[in-house]
């Protein structure tokens, strides 16, 4: 099909509801936005001809051409910095880091430039870009392919850090991230890239950033999580419901800047909070959430805030990775512990 025919078909399909996985939702959002905003370009290693090692960008090059869908040389620092240059020119680059474990080479560009261009120039230039990276463990991958270091980015002023945990949120949040006029680090939980499908209307509707998503309402305890751990958190909520414990489950979604209000309202109601994340505990985003709640909801809290997290060590290679990851039982145990107080 040639480009203009494709375009027509696509317009017809707009709003079509599709049953998709999280990674397909990412692809759908990219395609929608490229179709509707010519400023959107994507770049990264193996994203064009190969469609990305996880197929997140599949079909984009065929549809939008190699000028807007760019395979780069192998250099993450370059990818991070090139996107910045493009963004200062009003493009909306979406740059992929193949795995979060390889984002560190781009750290200087991200911290010292992407996050600062607007502030430094007092708004003259800004960086409407998205850095995408699959993250997290549990897929039997080699070393460096299982990282969850979202906390490193959450601490950097000037960045937004957004993490979807379902196909619908992947679609809506990625659209919002691309349209956002400031840099967004968009981390995709690869363990649940294909875990479930969901109906997503391909209608270009973004979901709000900077807000938590309450996935389940409850009274006894607030469960706070994001990314792939939402899966186990919801499973734990089910189990706890069987025991008669009513949990409120919150997907933080934008881990920085943090929507403390939703978290505090929930804890004001439940009096208890358990935070679940895959990243190691020491200095994880769970620490900021716990510290914020413990400070602001001091009088509401009926039990200490417990964190269920990865260990403070290097993610083991895959034979032992399950021993590192938080499991449903760990969450259940933690809730039982805080409920007992």
């Amino acid at each position: 099909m040639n480009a203009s025919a494709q375009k027509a078909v696509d317009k017809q399909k707009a709003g079509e509801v599709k049953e998709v996985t999280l990674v397909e939702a990412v692809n759908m959002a990219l395609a929608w936005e490229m179709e509707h905003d010519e400023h959107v370009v994507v770049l990264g290693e193996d994203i064009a001809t190969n469609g990305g090692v996880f197929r997140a960008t599949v079909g984009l090059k065929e549809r939008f051409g190699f000028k807007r869908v760019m395979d780069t040389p192998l250099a993450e620092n370059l990818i991070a910095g090139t996107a910045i240059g493009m963004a200062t020119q009003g493009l909306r680059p979406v740059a992929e880091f193949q795995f979060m474990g390889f984002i560190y080479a781009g750290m200087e560009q991200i911290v010292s430039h992407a996050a600062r261009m607007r502030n430094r120039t007092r708004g003259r230039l800004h960086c409407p870009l998205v850095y995408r990276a699959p993250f997290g463990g549990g897929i039997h991958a080699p070393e460096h392919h299982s990282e969850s270091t979202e906390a490193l980015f959450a601490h950097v002023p000037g960045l937004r850090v957004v993490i979807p945990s379902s196909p619908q949120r992947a679609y809506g949040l990625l659209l919002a991230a691309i349209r956002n006029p400031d840099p967004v680090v968009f981390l995709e939980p690869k363990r649940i890239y294909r875990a479930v499908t969901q109906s997503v209307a391909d209608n270009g509707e973004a979901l709000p950033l900077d807000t938590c998503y309450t996935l389940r309402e409850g009274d006894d305890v607030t469960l706070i999580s994001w990314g792939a751990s939402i899966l186990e958190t919801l499973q734990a909520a089910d189990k706890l419901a069987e025991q008669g414990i009513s949990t409120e489950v919150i997907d933080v979604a934008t881990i920085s800047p943090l929507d403390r209000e939703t978290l505090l309202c929930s804890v004001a109601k439940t009096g208890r909070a358990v935070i679940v994340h895959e990243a190691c505990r020491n200095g994880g985003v769970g620490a900021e959430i716990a510290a914020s709640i413990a400070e602001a909801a001091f009088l509401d809290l009926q039990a200490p805030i417990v964190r269920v997290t990865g260990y403070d060590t290097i993610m083991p290679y895959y034979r032992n990775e399950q021993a590192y990851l938080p499991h449903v039982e760990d969450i259940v145990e933690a809730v039982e512990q805080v409920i007992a107080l």
Partner: protein
Amino acid sequence: MKELHEFHVDSTRYLDDHGKPLGDLPTQARDLHRTLAAYRHMVLIRTFDSKTIALQRTGKCGTYPSVLGHEVIGTAVGQSMAKTDVLVPYYRDQAAHILRGVSLKEMLLYWGGDERGSSWENCREDLPIAVPIATQCCHAVGVASAFRIRGEDRAVVCCVGDGGTSKGDFLESINLAGAWHLPVVFVVINNQWAISTPRSIQCGAETIAQKAIGAGLPGHIVDGNDYFSVTEAIEYALERAHGGKGASVIEAVTYRLGDHTTADDATRYRDAEELKKAWEKDGVKRLQNYLHDSGHWDADQEKQLQADCRETVETAVEEYLAMEPEPPTAMMDYLFETLPAALHDQRDRLADKHRARSGQGGGA
């Protein structure tokens, strides 16, 4: 069974140390108006430079990197670029910035510790000064990519020091510029030093220009104190870039005649003799000699120019000194387009404190 693959870079010089032509001059030299403007600009920049150092010494400006010895290169860059081209500078490009449209006051604000010094009323698309060495090279290829993607006939000039050429950003960027055939001119300002680190320690290669070879780009060396050779090289490279012929690397060889910055004391690590010799090659004096010898400049004109420059600089300094600092809340107001709810409290606290401390009713 053995085969040789051969490569080269070229080097060019038109004026000797005293401003005497070594042979035919390039076409650019026929434009007397431009050459005179260049000389006037160099003197302005030099005047600005010594004044800013004086301001720093008296606590009226922050750490400042002197441009002494780099005026010729910056002037040639500024003159050669089209208005719609984009400059991606490092931090010693004063001469280029001012020609692009940055005001002396803005320049002072920047080094005076005020972010408004990069908000630039003119040259809105030029990138701000990059402090982390060589990082700007990646932005340069990004800007050039944007031009290519949109099919615009524009080019980028990216400046970087000799020290900067050791850093991945420069090397990765010239590689991309080569692979993607991007309209960028990389100008390496080889002033022989990176703070205290001499050129010999940066790199074992004979020249810096030869780094272009590994990226598949043409490399040129020019005498960075020879206005004509720098101008010719940059114009040639810009023409190529505009003509869709891709990127180039120019190594402009000069010498850092001042300390690295006002926070540095170069006598700790370099020879007085070496510095003295470098002064003999000074490009500003050289161009003055050339103009003088060719009958286009005299002592009266020089005197007048010096006075004009002093006045221009004084006026800018006064404007600069008269600027109130931004309210502290400014530190939050440009972080994002819209302040996220998460930061409202902090901004309020900042405003309250400022009000309390400055004893005023309003302020923030």
